[in-house]
């Protein structure tokens, strides 16, 4: 009975299975037909939206609408719609164009900036925007209480880092004189050889700030003279750790410094001490602790976009909720459907509202690239975020006329942990670099460019970018041999028996493009050096601390995108031993070279010095440069005023919907004016 039953069940299953397979093959058959048939110049539907709106697939749900707080690209794009800074970015070149400031003056060593604000700018509540609003926003942005992850971008501003670190000044209670850095310079700085060069490491213990890299004292600064301005130009004050325990520890190590500070009072560095000043209601002056020619371009960053003091003080962390929020950009919040879309509408009070073309922008949430492209294809979205086109789709999507291609100020590289053998040997590091054919790799990736330096290829005009070692497997094997790991021929390939493969691995955060990159590198090293480096894929939040704390051996994938349009945003990674320096390579000589470059007033000369420093970096090979990214997204031909610029940020007020199809973009719009 039982056996009989089982037999009949098996027969039933067999019939079901046949039916199921038939249905499945029918369904898949329809699909494969539909994949092949994608005719047309454009990817999907090109009917413009009925209303004058832009529907933009923006990626993740924004974490916050508070401009200095979030670090992500989706938020940055939203902040550009809702808030304005002193400057705005040019939609094509990404240079600074007037924003809240109508015009500005820069002193001749780029350490002091005076901005003249327009008088007709108001908040979405109708209140006028004044210089005090900017001062408040910067002070808030670098306040320890806000703990913004972007705060480091403001550290060029005088005493901003000291304030952020809750540092203290030392003051003589009788004379009311502050202890200056130069007063204790001998005792504090000469204690460590090569004072300025070991700055970064010293700074962590709180002895000196970047205040001490005072450039040539160029007094010819524009704007009215004030007491605060005199303070900014007086010799830098000494700053010490605010935490008593840390301070005492430091003093105990340095008896001379301790003697100099005997009986002094410690005064916390306050928000009022940092180098931003409202000279009058419509004039702002920013004093930096060192020359920084690229600082102007930084002022478009969200950290420096204005936040409304009145509303923040009234509602605390609830101020960004749609019922309370007050903004100052071309658009204001209309509706926030969490995890679905943020709708912003044109703010009629914006000073340039007449030139804002769109009535609304809908920022759509989508975490997955295929999902984003689907929305785009069926015409539910008008443009998608950068890097939304999956590699596997490029063959189909890239030939379309709405595919946006262009150089990007972002690179991929491999960090090498230089603190552990065998990778502590420069020859070994160079060998691994020279054994990779980056040109073929970039070809296989279709859109990226091979990279031999550490700054992206083709971004910084006039920058004499140095070249790293070329692909040269012969030389690579030779170098390995010199380092004590001879490579021998074996059959068609090579082998390197002496190399301790157990001491290296290649770690990366899990995603398909990192995976194919890892496999490519592994294959190259196997083929050219006879070494099989083990790969380890890790979940992103596990990978990042491992890389940043150097808890890996061998190689770790690194990506870096420019914060501003200057090579220093890349080269500065190795200014400190911590932070984003994922290789443990820290060389005072390199730091000194960069400092020298930044103190150089002539822009071309400065570029040359930066390039020299970059060459030095490449010679030491703490990283293996791999590729310069390319922007990789889509916009419908009727979306105009949106350009594939190097930073993938779009000043939204220039964007409009073109209904006349003869004026559409049939290809990538030009980035030159």
């Amino acid at each position, binding site marked *: 009975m039982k056996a009989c039953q089982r037999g009949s069940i098996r027969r*039933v299953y067999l019939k079901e299975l046949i039916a199921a397979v038939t249905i499945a093959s029918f369904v898949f058959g329809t699909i494969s037909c539909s994949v092949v048939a994608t005719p047309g110049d454009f990817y999907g539907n090109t009917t413009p939206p009925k209303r004058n709106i832009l529907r933009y697939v923006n990626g993740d749900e924004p974490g916050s609408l508070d401009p200095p707080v979030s670090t992500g690209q989706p938020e940055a794009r939203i902040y550009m719609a809702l808030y304005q800074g002193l400057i705005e970015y040019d939609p094509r070149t990404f240079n600074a164009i007037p924003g809240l400031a109508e015009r500005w003056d820069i002193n001749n060593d780029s350490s002091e900036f005076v901005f003249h604000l327009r008088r007709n700018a108001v908040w979405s509540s109708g209140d006028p925007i004044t210089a005090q609003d900017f001062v408040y926003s910067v002070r808030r942005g670098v306040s320890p209480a806000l703990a913004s*992850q972007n705060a480091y971008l403001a550290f060029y501003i005088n005493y901003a880092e000291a304030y952020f670190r809750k540092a203290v000044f030392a003051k003589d209670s009788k004379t009311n004189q502050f202890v200056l850095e130069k007063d204790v310079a001998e005792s504090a700085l000469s204690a460590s050889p090569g004072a300025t060069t070991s700055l970064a490491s010293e700074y962590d213990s709180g002895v000196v700030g970047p205040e001490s890299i005072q450039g040539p004292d160029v007094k010819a600064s524009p704007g009215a003279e004030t007491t605060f301005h005199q303070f900014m130009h007086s010799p830098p004050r000494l700053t010490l750790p605010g935490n008593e325990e840390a301070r005492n520890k430091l003093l105990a190590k340095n008896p001379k410094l301790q003697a100099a500070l005997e009986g002094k009072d410690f005064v916390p560095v306050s928000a009022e001490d940092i180098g931003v000043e409202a000279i009058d209601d419509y004039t702002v002056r920013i004093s930096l602790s060192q020359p920084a020619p690229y600082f102007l371009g930084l002022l478009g960053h969200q950290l420096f976009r204005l936040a409304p003091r009145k509303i923040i003080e009234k509602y605390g962390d609830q101020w960004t909720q749609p019922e309370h929020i007050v903004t100052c950009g071309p658009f204001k919040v209309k509706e926030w459907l969490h995890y679905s879309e943020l709708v912003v509408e044109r703010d009629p009070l914006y000073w340039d509202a007449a030139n804002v073309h769109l009535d609304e922008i809908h920022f759509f949430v989508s975490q997955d690239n295929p999902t984003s492209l*689907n929305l785009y294809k069926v015409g*539910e979205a008008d443009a998608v975020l950068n890097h939304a086109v999956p590699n596997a789709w490029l063959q189909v999507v890239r030939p379309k006329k709405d595919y946006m291609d262009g150089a990007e100020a972002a690179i991929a590289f491999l960090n090498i942990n230089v603190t552990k053998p065998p990778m502590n040997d420069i020859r070994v590091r160079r060998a691994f670099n020279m054994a990779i054919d980056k040109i073929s790799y970039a070809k296989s990736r279709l859109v990226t460019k091979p990279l031999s330096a550490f700054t992206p290829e083709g971004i910084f005009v006039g920058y004499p970018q140095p070249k790293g070692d070329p692909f040269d497997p012969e030389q690579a094997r030779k170098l390995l041999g010199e380092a004590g790991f001879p490579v021998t021929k074996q059959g068609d390939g090579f082998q390197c028996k002496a190399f301790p493969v157990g001491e290296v691995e290649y770690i990366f955060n899990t995603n398909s493009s990192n995976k194919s990159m890892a496999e490519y590198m592994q294959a190259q090293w196997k083929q050219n050096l006879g070494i099989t480096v083990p790969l380890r894929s890790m979940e992103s939040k596990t990978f*990042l601390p491992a890389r940043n704390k150097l808890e890996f051996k061998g190689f770790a994938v690194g990506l870096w995108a420019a914060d501003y349009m200057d090579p220093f945003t890349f080269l500065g990674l190795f200014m400190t031993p911590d932070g984003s320096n994922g290789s443990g390579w820290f060389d005072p000589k390199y730091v000194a070279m960069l400092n020298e470059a930044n103190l150089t007033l002539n822009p071309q000369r400065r570029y040359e010095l930066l390039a020299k420093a970059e060459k030095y970096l490449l010679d030491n090979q703490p990283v293996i440069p791999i590729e310069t990214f390319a922007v990789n997204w889509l916009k419908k031909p009727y979306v105009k005023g949106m350009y594939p610029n190097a930073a993938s940020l779009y000043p939204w007020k220039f964007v409009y919907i073109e209904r006349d199809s003869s004026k559409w973009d049939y290809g990538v719009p030009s980035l030159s004016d």
Partner: protein
Amino acid sequence: MLRFIVRRLIITIPTILVVITITWGLIRLAPGNFYISEKAIPAAIEKNIREKYGLDKPWYEQYGHTIWNIVRHFDFGTSLKYEGQSVNAIIARSLPVSATVGILAYLLALVVGITAGSIAALKPNSKRDYASMALAMLGISIPNFVLGPILILVFSLTLYWFPPSRWNGFPSRNVVLPVLTLSGLYMAYIARLTRAGMLEVLRSDYIRTARAKGLSETQVVIRHALRGGLMPVVSYTGPALAFLVTGTVVVERLFVLPGLGSYFIQASLNRDEPLILGIVAFVAITLLLMNLLVDIAYAYLDPRIRY
């Protein structure tokens, strides 16, 4: 019966606390934290962030603080990623989305599944039995992360009938594909369970008695057979409803629905501790309550069960 319900409800409380504690521990054991990102931050910034969120305090203090707020005010705090948004508010606004899709999928699965299962059971080994069971087999063996994209490809990208993703409230065309995707597996499973249950019941003595009494076939099936035949379905669909209502990670992410499942996966990836704890606690409570409802339904459906 009442005593049984009260006792079960009381046991729920310590269960939830244990669930929260284990989840809390797991989050703490997981490497990484909410503020780490591709661009590493200087030590000074990290220090200020840790102070701001009380992460510089000893673990037992942080744990005690978390538990106390939950026990005292049922307050899970504010999300670490979504600044200024309370966990309770996030759950309150994402639950309706998950519940709408979940309940629709549930109803669809029940109606289609029970119908198909009954039809199959009434004439075993017939053509319609094979046809419906073949579909059911397909439904069980195709996971929703495959079914979803197929539906999108066919009905959205090729036929342009329904939007490929996004939430647009209910009712709207956006609901169709997620509901179909979500109900597929459950529909198929319910169909098979119904068929099996019905076959068993249709052979039992009391059905024979019913037929012998001269009842019409419709009456036999609906009044007697279905009631008994659905027992396995009931025990399956209780917890299934809990899962459907509290969000399904894959379908919500695939269709970008602002439901609990989307938030849950994003919160885990972001290491957003308060949000993870809140959603886990909520799902656990729903699951326990659903199980209780199943037990009550059992007592109602099967006269032999007494508590």
